[in-house]
C-alpha cells in the first residue's frame, strides 16, 4: 500500500514535471533565431539587422529599445513579413513564418498584427473609419453587412470612441484618437500577437499614457502578447515584462525589465540607462551620466568583432577580433559582451 502510494506519488511528480515542460514549450509564442535582414542599396549592403535571437512568451510584453537606426523597426517588420528575412528563422506558434503559404499565411496575417508609429500616416485618408477598421474583416471574410458594422462599433467602444465616428474620415481626428483607431483595426481580426512599432512616440505625453493604458487593458482582457518597440525607456519599463536592448543591428542585452534597469550588464545598456531623466534634481545631480564617445558606426561597414567596441568605455583587445557570444549569463538575463565570458 505504502509502496504503491510512493510509486504513484513519484509518477504524479513526473507527470507534473512533464506538464510543466510542455507548458514551457507551449508558452513560447514567437521564437526568433539568428534573424538577419540586409538591404541592398546600390552596391552596398546595409546590415540593418544582423543575427538577432530571442523568444517571446505568450501573454507577456517584450520591450525592444535602442537608438534611432539600430534596427528595432526592421526587426518588427521582418517578423510580420513586411520584409523577407535575409537569414534566420521566425517561428510563430510552431511554424516558420517566412515559409507560410496560402491558407496558413492568411491565418498568420490574422494572428499577428501591427500598430504603427505615425498616426497621421497609418490611416488611409480616403477611407471612412468604418471601412478602415473593417478592412481586416473584409479581407478575411469574417463579417458582412450589419454584423460587420456591429463589430466595428464594438471595437470603437473598446478603444474609447463611439458610433458617431463611423462615417468620419481620419483627418477629423486627433493623433491619440487616430492611434486608437489603428489599434481597433489591428484588433478586428482577433490577433494573438501585436507588434507595436513606436506606437506612442508621435503623441503628446498626456495622450501617451492614454494609449499605453489602453494597450495594457486590452492585453489583460484579451490575453494579447506584445512586442513593444520604442525608444522612450521609462515608458518601456512601465509596459514591458522583459526588455531587449539593440545596438547597430544586434541585441546586446535582454532581461526582465526590473532586473535590466537595476543591474544593466552591458556597457551600452549602462550608458543608455544613465541617459534616462530622473524627475528629482537632487538625485539627478549626484548621478553619473555616461557619455559615449563618437557616433554610431555605419551599418554598411560595421566594426569587426563586437559592434559596440568603437564606443565602449570598457573595451578590451579581444573585442575587435571575436564577436561576443549571445548567452544567458544569469537566469533570464542574456547578454552579448566579452566582459562576461
Amino acid at each position: 500500500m505504502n509502496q504503491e502510494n510512493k510509486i504513484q506519488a513519484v509518477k504524479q511528480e513526473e507527470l507534473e514535471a512533464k506538464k510543466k515542460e510542455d507548458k514551457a514549450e507551449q508558452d513560447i509564442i514567437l521564437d526568433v533565431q539568428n534573424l538577419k535582414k540586409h538591404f541592398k542599396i546600390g552596391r552596398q549592403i546595409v546590415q540593418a539587422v544582423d543575427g538577432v535571437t530571442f523568444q517571446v512568451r505568450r501573454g507577456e510584453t517584450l520591450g525592444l529599445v535602442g537608438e534611432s537606426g539600430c534596427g528595432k523597426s526592421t526587426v518588427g517588420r521582418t517578423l510580420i513579413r513586411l520584409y523577407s528575412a535575409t537569414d534566420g528563422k521566425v517561428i510563430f506558434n510552431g511554424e516558420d513564418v517566412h515559409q507560410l503559404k496560402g491558407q496558413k499565411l492568411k491565418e498568420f496575417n490574422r494572428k499577428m498584427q501591427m500598430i504603427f508609429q505615425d498616426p497621421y500616416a497609418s490611416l488611409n485618408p480616403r477611407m471612412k473609419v468604418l471601412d478602415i477598421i473593417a478592412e481586416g474583416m473584409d479581407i478575411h471574410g469574417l463579417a458582412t453587412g450589419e454584423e460587420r458594422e456591429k463589430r466595428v462599433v464594438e471595437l470603437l467602444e473598446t478603444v474609447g470612441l463611439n458610433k458617431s465616428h463611423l462615417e468620419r474620415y481620419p483627418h477629423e481626428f486627433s493623433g491619440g484618437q487616430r492611434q486608437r483607431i489603428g489599434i481597433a483595426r489591428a484588433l478586428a481580426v482577433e490577433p494573438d500577437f501585436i507588434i507595436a512599432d513606436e506606437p506612442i512616440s508621435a503623441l503628446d505625453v498626456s495622450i501617451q499614457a492614454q494609449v499605453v493604458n489602453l494597450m495594457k487593458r486590452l492585453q489583460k482582457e484579451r490575453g494579447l502578447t506584445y512586442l513593444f518597440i520604442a525608444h522612450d525607456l521609462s515608458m518601456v519599463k512601465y509596459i514591458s515584462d522583459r526588455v531587449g536592448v539593440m545596438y547597430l543591428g544586434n541585441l546586446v542585452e535582454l532581461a526582465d525589465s526590473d532586473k535590466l534597469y537595476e543591474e544593466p550588464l552591458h556597457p551600452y545598456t549602462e550608458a543608455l540607462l544613465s541617459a534616462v531623466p530622473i524627475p528629482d534634481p537632487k538625485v539627478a545631480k549626484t548621478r553619473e551620466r555616461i557619455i559615449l564617445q563618437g557616433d554610431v558606426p555605419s551599418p554598411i561597414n560595421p566594426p569587426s568583432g563586437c559592434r559596440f567596441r568603437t564606443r565602449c568605455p570598457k573595451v578590451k583587445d579581444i573585442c575587435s577580433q571575436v564577436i561576443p557570444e549571445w548567452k544567458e549569463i544569469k537566469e533570464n538575463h542574456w547578454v552579448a559582451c566579452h566582459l562576461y565570458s
Partner: protein
Amino acid sequence: MKESVQLTKEMFQPVKMDNMAQNQISRPSVGFWKDVWRRFYRNAGAMIGVVLLAIILFFTFIGPSMGKTDYQTQNLSLQDMEPTIQSLISGDDYRFGTDNLGRDLWTRVWYGTKISLMIAFLAAILEIALGVMIGVISGYFGGIVDDILQRVIEVLYSIPNTIVVILLLIVFEPGILPIALALALTNWLPTARVVRAQVLKLKSQEYVLAAKTLGASHFRIMFKHLLPNVIGPIIVAIMFAIPTAIFYEAFLSFIGLGIRPPEASLGVIINDGAKNLQIFPHELLIPAIVLGTMMLSFNLIGDGLRDALDPRMRK
C-alpha cells in the same frame, strides 16, 4: 451697499470629465469631394473656365441644328459670305457667314468643335487609362518590373511624337478612333511617370503597410489604397491632356493628316480658312477663337482643380 457672498465648500464641485463628450466631433463631416468643390468654387479663374466651357458645350450640342444648312451642304452661289452682327443675332442669314464652298460656317464650327472634343476626350481617357495602369504597376511592384518599364518609357520618350503619330495615321485610315488612339499612344508617358512617382511615395506609407499586414492582395492595395490617393494628380492630368489633344488634333488636321473632308474638325476648318486669310479673315478667326477659348477654359479648370485637389501645391 455691498452684499457679502458666502462661499461654502459645497459650492465647489469638481467638474466631471466626460470621456464621451471629449471625443465628440461637433462639426459636420466634410468629405473629400465637398472640400475640393469648396476650394474650386472660390477660384475665380476656374469658374470663368467652367462658364466658358459650358457655353461652348451648349453650342456644340445645340449649334449645328441652329444653322441654315448642315455642315457639308454646299451653296456655290453664296461663297465666302461675311458674317454681320444682325445675321448673328437674328439667325435669318448665315450667322458666321460661309466658307469658300458656300457651307454654313456656324454649323461647321460647332460640328467641328464636337468632333475635336470627341477625339480629345477619347484620347485623354485612353491615355490616362494606359498611363495610370503602367504607372501603378511600375511603381508598386518596383524592382525588375519597374526597371524594364522605365527603360521602355525612356526609349519611347526619345522618339518624336509627331513621327509616331504620322506613321500610325499612315497605317490606319484617319478617323475619330485612329486619331485618338495615335494621340493616346504617344501621350501616356508623362502620366505614367507622374503616377509612378506618386505610387512610389505612397506605397511605403504606413496605411499601405497596415493593409499588407492584414493580408490584403496586391489588387486590393492598388485599387483601395493607392489609386484613390493618386486620384488628384490623375484628374489634373486628364484636364491638361484634353487641351493638349485638342491642339494636337488641330495640328494634325492642319497639316492634312487629321479628319478627312467633308468631315469637319476645328483643325480642318482652320486649315481651310487659312487659305483665304488675307481676303476673308473671318473664315480663320472664328474657328481659331473657339479653339483658343476652349483650350483656355480647359487650362483654367485644370489649374483650379490642381489647387483644389492638392492645396499644398498652391503657391
